[in-house]
């Protein structure tokens, strides 16, 4: 044991030959480094925007999606992203901060996207997640629902579902549930 420690000490001394070691400084965490890299490699296009409540904390931010086509066109949707220190081993935690009518997003804002749960792999990056999020608005998926009523609605009556989406986005209610106004 002592031998191993002295090996480390020798290595450290060799590196600090000129001194100036000082007290233990905090290291950039692996999660921060990975997020820094992921952010750099994002392609946001003009339908997405990111905001950082505290720009020094890149692990927590908001993604705003403004779909320019599909049933949700004209809406402004906000998602909070919370990346933990175990990223990229753990996926980011993503929640919709508004109450919206969507088959894959429940009324509490939980999002059902395979790569946020069972299909998450550390090789996936934030870009994959936001592309997936954007896709949810272009192609809501009725076969994998979190909001079962909305999914049934989409499956059985696509036109009616579209109308319900429009009215929910305008702040109206669908089957007795009122939604937040999210129009631009």
């Amino acid at each position, binding site marked *: 044991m002592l031998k*191993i420690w002295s090996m480390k000490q020798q290595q450290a001394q060799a590196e600090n030959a000129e001194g100036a070691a000082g007290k233990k400084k905090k290291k950039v965490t692996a999660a921060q*480094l990975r997020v820094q890299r992921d952010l*750099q490699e994002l392609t946001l296009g003009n339908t997405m925007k990111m905001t*950082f409540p505290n*720009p*020094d904390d890149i692990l927590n931010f908001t993604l705003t999606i403004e779909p320019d086509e599909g049933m949700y066109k004209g809406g402004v949707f906000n998602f909070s992203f919370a990346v933990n220190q175990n990223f990229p081993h753990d996926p980011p935690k993503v929640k919709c901060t508004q109450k919206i009518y969507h088959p894959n997003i429940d009324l509490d804002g939980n999002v059902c996207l395979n790569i946020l749960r069972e299909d998450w792999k550390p090789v996936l990056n934030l870009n994959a997640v936001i592309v997936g999020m954007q896709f949810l608005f272009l192609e809501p998926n009725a076969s994998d629902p979190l909001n079962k009523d909305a999914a049934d609605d989409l499956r059985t009556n696509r036109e009616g579902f579209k109308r319900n989406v429009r009215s929910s986005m305008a702040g109206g209610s669908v089957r007795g549930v009122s939604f937040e106004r999210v129009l631009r």
Partner: protein
Amino acid sequence: MSQQGRWKHLYKVMSKPGPYCDDDWVPGSDTIDTLESSKILVIGAGGLGCEILKNLALSGFKDIHVIDMDTIDISNLNRQFLFRQADIGKPKAEVAAAFVEKRVKGVKITPFVGKIQDKDEDYYMQFKIIICGLDSIEARRWINATLIGMVDPENPESLKPLIDGGTEGFKGQARVILPTLSSCIECQLDMHAPRPAVPLCTIATIPRQPQHCIEWAHQIAWQDKRKDDTFDSDDMEHISWVYHAALERAQQFHIHGVTFQMTQGVVKNIIPAIASTNAVIAASTTSEVLKIATGCNPYLENYMMYAGEEGVYTYTFEAEKKPDCPVCGNLARKMDVDPDMTLGDFIESLGERAEAQLKKPSMRTEEKTLYQRFPPQLEEHTRPNLRLKLRELVENGEEIAVSDPAYTIDFRYRLVFK
């Protein structure tokens, strides 16, 4: 057996220098005290873990901790000998700890039921050596990265040797990892080929093998027909349902060979576990712990493979550090800087340095985002930093992490003021 009698041989080894021990090794009571006071963490209380706990306790360690998140299943009982029929459903860590404590007087085993990820650096810092008998690569990578991140050059005791054992059928390996000094789990990752996953489209459209039909029944048919039931691989009725669905599909495609047993194997992702392989590997890993903790003999450098399928074969070699290892190859390098240089000039100078040639870097410290090129909001916010002097942004000796899209790896520098 009397306490004296039990440890007689162990004490002998600790009290006399052997032919292989270091010249400066001091045998005697101090070494025995070191052994008995060393706090050891065992990760996993399964096939390997049971053996490891038993071996450590019988090697004279007195303060052992064990982490495992699983509960005992009936299929564990053939080889996980610390468990009995009445223990089924109870947490492995607790039952294993209680059993060994009862059997070996004087040893204290502290169980924790949960995931290794539930614990932080402070927790891992209290141990001298960490030994693991895990079945997942994911968990190995996590503990490896955590231990490497914990190493503080100023404090040698922050370096925690990691002894890793693994088995699959008749094959196994034992390795000693000295975080930051030797090759790490991440460096060695490509030696272990992942189990090839069958693409979902093959399963969904044209199966070729009986296993494809089972995967289809398990992943697709179940979702379709029984989505309200959560599939439980221990529920006989569920397995049987999948088996019949798979059999039917196999007949449609004229595929033979779907059996009940194969169904169980595929859905539970069973790797055959052989008790003796676990015993061999656990014995090897625990003797490494004993040797490292006491210094009584040289330790394994650094990888022992064991193959028992045809006779017995073992081979020991030194796995090398990977220079571009994303975990241990990415330690901070020292860089002398002029503290009165602006961040903008510093970034420009990085582009000229031969070893880096970073053209479009983003960088931060643990606390601050120094400069981030994308997304736009962060760029705008950090742009004013470019005009600030380094001394206004970082402390002397602080670490910065730099990413550049031109490189797949990131760089860490410890900035030392000239």
